[in-house]
């Protein structure tokens, strides 16, 4: 065979063309440059612990119930997608936990987990079934005012965690919460021997877990009224702040009472709802032991895409949750009686008003998803590690949040124009997930569509 004569023009041109083709192919398939670290390394450490650390227990992590891909909650529909060997189902897998640890039937049917909040002396007889609350916006949703509360840890600190506001041992705050959670949910046997059935989180781990959880969701309250564009949502916001009396417990649609009281507990009569299913045979008496019937106030901004609702997942839809406040169960409850303000009933909304309030909650939830998407896709577009999370993973989470925003709007019949923009953003984000080399450009385009959607919901 003759050697290639590079002095020949055709050969030289061919070689240059070949090299150019190789370069183009390499550039096309090469991903973006490695992302630069950004954000708090403590939050990154906390994220790692939250989703991966089993604390030498039964295989569960915090993320077993607070699922990254499901708005940090579990519900029956999501649970049905899990394989039978998922650690969530450890009570069905581990013979040491098949009694008095979970109720698999209620877990699968209603997304409920078992809590022994009155102690562990009578596991068979003393327990309650509760839903998994989302853990967004805890920075602004846990603290309450010690000057107007009882049973505080000190004169200056009165945190409220968990569905009855008493979810943590020790200092009872978010930092201490993981200690109680590991003890209740991570144990290998119902003996709960520390150092044998699980290990307790170290102080450093508790600090990191707290930092991560505080980083989740909103870091500031909304300032109502918002300049919404949907007439129904505008009407709903007005009802929320006036005749609906929602703001009396949920100031700015958050978790706090107005006037500086912070997060509170109330007895709103959820336990008195009729139960045609027979699922709720155990009475949950709420805060304290014995309980006083009160439960903790959650934030409402995040509500529309984190159902089912209330401490026992007894209501499936946001419309149903709003309609609950029309019920006899609520109006006869201590809170309902207190809110009567001299009338026969505290709250009496007609069907259109209920729907309007729900539309308002749907709109602000969609906006909150958009806020989060600006963080997520902004990090992808800037090619940074978002508190240790790689853009390739962030993009996947962004698809979930876009889906949530689409769902809450579509289910409420709201803003089809914004839905269209969100669907376009979804397509771009899915493409960003599958085409790493174009991820940055596609994220930027998706952000444009998402913010166009925002401008159609909010003035």
């Amino acid at each position: 065979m003759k050697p290639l004569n590079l002095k020949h023009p055709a050969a030289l041109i061919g070689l240059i063309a070949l090299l150019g083709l190789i370069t183009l192919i390499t550039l096309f398939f090469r991903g973006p440059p490695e992302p630069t670290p950004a954000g708090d390394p403590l939050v990154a450490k906390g994220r790692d612990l939250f989703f991966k650390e089993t604390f030498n227990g039964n295989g569960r992590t915090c993320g077993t119930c607070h699922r990254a891909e499901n708005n940090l909650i579990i519900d029956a529909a999501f649970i049905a997608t899990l394989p039978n060997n998922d650690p969530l189902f450890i009570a069905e897998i581990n013979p040491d936990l098949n009694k008095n640890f979970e109720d698999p039937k209620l877990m699968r049917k209603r997304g409920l987990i078992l809590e022994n909040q009155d102690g562990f002396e009578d596991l068979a007889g003393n327990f309650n079934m509760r839903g998994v609350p989302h853990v967004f916006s805890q920075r602004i949703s846990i603290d309450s005012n010690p000057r107007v509360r009882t049973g505080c840890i000190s004169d200056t600190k009165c945190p409220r965690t968990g569905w009855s506001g008493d979810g943590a041992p020790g200092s009872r705050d978010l930092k201490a919460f993981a200690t109680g959670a590991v003890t209740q949910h991570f144990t290998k046997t119902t003996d709960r021997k520390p150092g044998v059935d699980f290990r307790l989180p170290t102080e450093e781990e508790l600090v990191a877990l707290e930092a991560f959880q505080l980083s989740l969701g909103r870091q500031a309250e909304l300032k109502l009224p918002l300049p919404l564009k949907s007439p129904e949502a505008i009407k709903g916001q007005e009802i929320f702040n006036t005749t609906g009396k929602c703001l009396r417990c949920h100031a700015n649609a958050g978790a706090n009472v107005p006037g500086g009281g912070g997060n509170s507990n109330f007895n709103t009569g959820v336990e008195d709802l009729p139960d045609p299913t027979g699922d709720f045979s155990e009475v949950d008496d709420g805060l304290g032991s014995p309980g006083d019937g009160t439960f903790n106030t959650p934030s409402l901004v995040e509500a529309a895409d984190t159902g089912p609702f209330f401490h026992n997942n007894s209501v499936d839809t946001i419309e149903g949750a709003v309609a609950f406040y029309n019920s006899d169960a609520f109006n006869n409850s201590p809170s309902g009686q207190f809110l009567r303000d001299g009338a026969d009933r505290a709250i009496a909304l007609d069907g259109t008003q209920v729907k309007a309030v729900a539309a308002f909650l749907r709109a602000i939830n969609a906006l909150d998803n958009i806020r989060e998407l600006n963080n997520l896709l902004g990090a992808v577009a800037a090619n940074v590690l978002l508190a240790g999370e790689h853009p390739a993973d962030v993009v996947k989470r962004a698809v979930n949040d876009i889906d949530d925003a689409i769902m809450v709007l579509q289910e409420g019949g709201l803003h089809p124009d914004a839905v269209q923009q969100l669907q376009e953003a979804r397509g771009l984000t899915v493409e960003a997930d599958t085409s790493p080399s174009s991820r940055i450009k596609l994220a930027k385009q998706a952000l444009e569509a998402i913010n166009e959607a925002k401008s159609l919901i909010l003035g």
Partner: protein
Amino acid sequence: MLTRLFFLGVLLALPASALFAQYTTEEFVPIGASPGVSNIYSIIGKIATVNQENGSLTVSDSSGVTYLVTNLKGVSIWLDRSKVKGKNEVGSLADLQPGRTVEVKYKGDPATRGTSLTADWVKVEVTS
């Protein structure tokens, strides 16, 4: 005015001595490991004397300070068996014996704490 009345309603709804529920997982937290509490809102030391009749004891900590602890008849007493990898359990006044290591969570603030403490809960180390 309505806001203040609302707060009053909340206050009246809460029993004055509410035992916070999930703090029952405290039972399984070994002495010295209670997050945000151990050695801040609690003292740890060896039991010197016990008065079962009036529900009090004296505790000496590692720096030699002796505390008088009262109100033991109304609080949770937990047996910490973690050192022998045993199961922690609810205990009683009878388990508070001289020489045993104890952690006492007290009521009130560390800044104003003296050497007379009102117990909120007690953990006692048991090695059998």
